[in-house]
């Protein structure tokens, strides 16, 4: 919804907004691309930024690959298309083995809601009060927090690592050392690596 609403305000057509969601299907980078288009950044700049912003999907899909049966190989090209922040959060916090049908159903629901949300957001955009439009952004973060909590309640180590990752990424972004998108990748690899190393030493079960 939020993407459709925002897309309308930047002046792209309904068809273009629909295509963005239907073939790219990557929330954060779509918002960033709208910004870049609006500020006149060229093709190369947008593609490179997209690569950096979405590089985290590489980490997510390697994680998911480690959780599924290798018999699923033929479904990988389809499953891969649906790896998003949202589907990843849900999948990663589900206990036990992930079945192919579960992943595909989950990803399809996410996909259909994203695309229909974009179209209805674009159409509704003109009618919604400005105040509500501006308040939509928090919903995504609220969802992430809600997904993370059950995990954090069980393990303080996970909480500590997650919070240090948040601080490190914020610090890296603030200091502006790395190009946008890379700081999150560096943060994740560094903190997860430290976590794995540190807790292996103490021999604790994760």
């Amino acid at each position: 919804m939020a993407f459709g609403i925002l897309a309308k305000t930047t002046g792209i057509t309904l068809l273009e907004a629909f295509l963005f969601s239907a073939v790219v299907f990557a929330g954060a980078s779509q918002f960033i691309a709208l910004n870049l288009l609006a500020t006149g950044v060229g093709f190369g700049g947008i593609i490179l930024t997209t690569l950096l912003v979405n590089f985290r999907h590489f980490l997510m899909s390697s994680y998911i690959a480690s959780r599924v049966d290798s018999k699923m190989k033929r479904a990988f090209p389809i499953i891969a298309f649906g790896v998003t922040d949202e589907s990843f959060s849900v999948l990663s916090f589900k206990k036990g083995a992930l079945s192919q049908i579960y992943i595909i159903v989950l990803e399809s629901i996410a996909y259909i809601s994203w695309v229909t949300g974009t179209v209805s957001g674009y159409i509704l955009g003109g009618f919604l009060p400005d105040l509500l439009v501006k308040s939509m952004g928090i919903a995504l973060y609220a969802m992430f927090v809600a997904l993370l909590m059950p995990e954090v309640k069980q393990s303080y180590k996970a909480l500590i690592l997650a919070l240090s990752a948040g601080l490190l990424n914020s610090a890296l972004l603030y200091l502006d050392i790395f190009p946008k998108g890379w700081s999150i990748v560096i943060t994740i690899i560094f903190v997860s690596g430290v976590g794995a190393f540190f807790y292996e030493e103490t021999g604790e079960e994760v």
Partner: protein
Amino acid sequence: MEKISIEWVIIGMALITYFTRVSGFWLAEKTGKLPEKVENTLKYIPGTIIISIIAPAVFAQGTINAMASFACFLISLKSDNIVIVMVTGVAIVALMRNYIPL
């Protein structure tokens, strides 16, 4: 400056995004069973990714969003219902924007 075609931007973004998603599966396929050390590292990825996405946004978007995020955090301690947490978050931001000029 030459006006760039949005269609090409969409196609380019789609290809590059799909590449980032499928490459993780390729890697896992090539290497087969991952070493234990790598698997242990992967276990910590979900939490770290999520907080890494949220934290800068919370810091960057000002007091209202930071307070609303904290409220969502408190609510999620009490309730595992995602919809309740999301609706409350949006409601808090909308109300605060309306009544507190920041």
